[in-house]
């Protein structure tokens, strides 16, 4: 085999292979912008995080603005402490609230940020004051049944009067 032809084929092979990796990275995977960009982190305490996992998206107005970092447990307040890594391009006011939501009925859980009206912006290491934990399906059903039972009782009372 001639050296030049061999070189040509190896060149084609390597370029095709790298193109395949690039295709997987850009077209198949979501290596979208900020993953390697500048981030700052916030902390937030939740009474219940449900099924939230590290690297879950953080969305504001439906736009992905960051990813969940570490999840820990606070021994003093008995709450879950979640680190939020946000893209530095996005700034939020001091009184922003965080809530754990579910995409679809049984989908992945994510953190939703609702901006407040404060003039001052949140900086690195700040703590979010207003949080709302995950809605646990079992609690919801339990509450629903309890309310139904309550309704029945008050109806009974009304009848006896």
């Amino acid at each position, binding site marked *: *085999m001639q050296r030049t032809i061999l070189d040509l084929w190896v060149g084609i092979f*390597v370029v095709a292979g790298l193109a*395949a*990796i690039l295709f*997987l990275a850009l077209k*198949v995977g979501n*290596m979208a912008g900020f*993953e390697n960009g500048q981030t700052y982190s916030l902390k937030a305490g939740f009474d219940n995080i449900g099924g939230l996992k*590290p690297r879950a998206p953080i969305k504001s107005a439906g736009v992905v603005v960051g990813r969940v970092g570490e999840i820990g447990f606070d021994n003093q307040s008995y709450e879950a402490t979640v680190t939020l890594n946000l893209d530095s391009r996005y700034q939020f006011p001091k009184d922003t609230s965080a809530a754990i939501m579910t995409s679809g009925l049984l989908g992945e859980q994510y953190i939703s940020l609702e901006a407040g009206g404060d003039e001052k912006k949140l900086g690195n290491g700040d703590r979010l004051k207003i949080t709302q934990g995950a809605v646990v399906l079992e609690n919801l059903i339990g509450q629903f049944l309890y309310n139904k039972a309550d309704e029945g009782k008050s109806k009974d009372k009304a009848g006896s009067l």
Partner: protein
Amino acid sequence: MIASIRSVLQKIGHRVIDSVWRMGFAGRFFLLTLMHSGTCFRRFHLILREVFSAGVLSLIIILVSGLFVGMVLGLQGFETLQTYGSEEALGILVAKSLVMELGPVVAALLFASRAGSAITAEIGLMKATEQIAAMEMMAVDPIARVVAPRFWGAVISMPLLAALFSAMGIFGGYLVGVVLIGVDNGSFWSQMQAAVSFDRDILNGVIKSVVFGVAVTTIALFEGFDAPPTAEGVSRATTRTVVTSSLAILGLDFILTAFMFRGV
């Protein structure tokens, strides 16, 4: 009675000692290969030649198998997902299974039987026809001149082949799912992109294929170098390369997957 138990135990002991000895020998061989890699990086065309014979010559089988595996995944996945009314998730199913598992594993299995066996046979024959001995007599270290370039050529080729396999498979899944069956084009790609992450899925797939490449190539080179210099010895070594490296790929795949899921 006692004598027969004794002989069975002896046989087991002998096999264990033998295989441990061989593993130690292979490990030493692997380290020697790494230590003597300097020469072939200074003369890079030696590695390019081996990228050609390990990588380029495996292209056809990798691309064709990738396409068919992807098409089968598309067909089977559609059948299953249809019963849950979520055909749009076909993209996720095809991409995730290819990028994390099937791409690296099947590409490595094909690589072991296509390139691995060729490496073993070539080195075994070089030994049988005294080419290795001749090289040593010419004051050229065969580990540096014959083994190391083949090692690096194959290790470079493996992740590229695995990526090509995955990309071809996703294209096959797209052909069957979107073009043939008619799953929505937009949701096929967008759901896939939402569910497959670069550093968790794709990078882990690449890491897997590099590890498989190192394992298959080391086994193939060692078996070739260790083969008795006879026709029968070389043919047995070639068979052993395919069997051992297939088992190594599947075993390593389990270990790596377990570590990667724990790390998330």
